[in-house]
């Protein structure tokens, strides 16, 4: 049986191999994703971002279990986790350690976890993250949790990939002005203040809620109020397993709002266009590079280095 068929039938090893091919940008990965594409688009993609050490992995560990199990309002769901950690800019290698915090999940073999290195991409997400998510969708996971590299500064990429973005903060990681400056609050659909067991968590939650209110007021001046989603602030302790039922409920509420408001479709469309645009850019660049005689290019780069030509006029010349 071939890989796409095996993935559709729930073969985990086939899925894992496909993820590797996609990560490495191998042609057979693209061919497999071609076949699987009609089976994508049904999963709820949840981004988990926030500063390093705020407890994203620890939270995912508890939250994935909460979301996987049936509760009063929800049936049991199939959950996958895609966890990003940074690559070393020096060696190109990576130490992927998010699993250390996901011990409970590792005891549940039905929850699929994949660690991914950022491989030089900026903005908290690896370049191929979108393609890996597509493969996980085709494999039939109802919920895909995507943990970004910890940074805390404008990880807009995750907001464009996910239907629902959780921004995870923790007490003692910076003040409200830093949060406002970093733009991290703007991408939050749900703001989580983790480590509620520590002092300062509640006051951090209040401060952040006030910041969110300012943002919401400014937004209301420019957009239709009836469609607005009010970003909730959720206090959790991944350490003590507190706040998970409430957080899962907030996620479900957002899911309901996404569908009712038409945002689900809009975000799905934007995500696919992002992927298409990126692939198009890469293709155009590759084709162009291949069409250039090698001597041409290195000569041009020489004149750049000698400062005989500016980058602008060099591009004009290459395209004239």
């Amino acid at each position: 049986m071939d890989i796409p068929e095996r993935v559709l039938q729930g073969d985990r090893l086939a899925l894992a191999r496909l993820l590797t091919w996609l990560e490495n940008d191998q042609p057979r990965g693209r061919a497999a994703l071609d076949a699987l594409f009609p089976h994508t688009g049904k999963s709820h993609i949840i981004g988990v971002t926030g500063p390093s050490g705020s407890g994203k992995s620890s939270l995912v560990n508890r939250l994935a279990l909460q979301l996987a199990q049936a509760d009063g309002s929800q049936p049991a769901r199939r959950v996958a986790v895609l966890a990003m950690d940074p690559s070393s800019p020096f060696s190109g290698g990576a130490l992927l350690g998010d699993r250390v915090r996901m011990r409970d999940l590792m005891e549940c073999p039905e929850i699929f976890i994949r660690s991914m290195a950022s491989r030089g991409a900026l903005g908290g997400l690896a370049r191929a993250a979108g393609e890996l998510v597509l493969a996980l969708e085709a494999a039939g996971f109802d919920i895909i949790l995507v943990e970004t590299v910890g940074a805390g500064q404008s990880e807009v990429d995750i907001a464009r990939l996910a239907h629902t973005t959780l921004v995870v903060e923790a007490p003692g990681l910076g003040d409200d002005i830093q949060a406002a400056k970093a733009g991290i609050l703007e991408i939050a659909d749900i703001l989580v203040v983790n480590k509620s067991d520590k002092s300062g968590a509640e006051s951090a939650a209040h401060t952040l809620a006030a910041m969110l209110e300012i943002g919401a007021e400014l937004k209301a001046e420019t957009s239709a109020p009836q469609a607005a989603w009010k970003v909730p602030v959720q206090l959790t302790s991944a350490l003590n397993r507190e706040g998970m039922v409430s957080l899962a409920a907030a996620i479900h509420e957002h899911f309901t709002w996404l569908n009712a408001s038409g945002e689900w479709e809009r975000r799905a469309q934007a995500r696919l266009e992002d992927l298409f645009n990126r692939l198009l850019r890469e293709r155009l660049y590759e084709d162009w590079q291949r069409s250039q005689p090698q001597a041409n290019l290195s000569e041009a780069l020489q004149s750049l280095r000698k400062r005989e030509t500016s980058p602008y006029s060099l591009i004009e010349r290459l395209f004239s």
Partner: protein
Amino acid sequence: MNRKIRVLIAKPGLDGHDRGAKVIARALRDAGMEVIYTGLRQTPEMITNAAMQEDVDAVGLSILSGAHMTLVPRVLELMKANGQGEVCVFVGGIIPEEDARELEKLGVKAVYGPGTPTTQVIADLTQMVEPA
């Protein structure tokens, strides 16, 4: 194309010393590999399930507890059952010579005692593993 050797470094069993595992994880990262580190006290089931989901090229087991003759064969057996019999498995720790020979017969690719230079592990892995 951007292929990287992916290695799972795991600590099966109950001993709580993971310095050796951390040193080798760090060294492999610095050699350009992608290392998935899973932390302490992993069962063979957890390790092999992670190895499958992560589609690794190699699995390194760090064992100081003396339980290697039960843990390692179990890991090998589960990996075969999962369709990962080809994945390179290596072991680090305090392993008596005859046990090492026995483990190699069962399919372990290399056994490293305390004080093995990390450069040797890196060289061996690079040679043994062809990334997917």
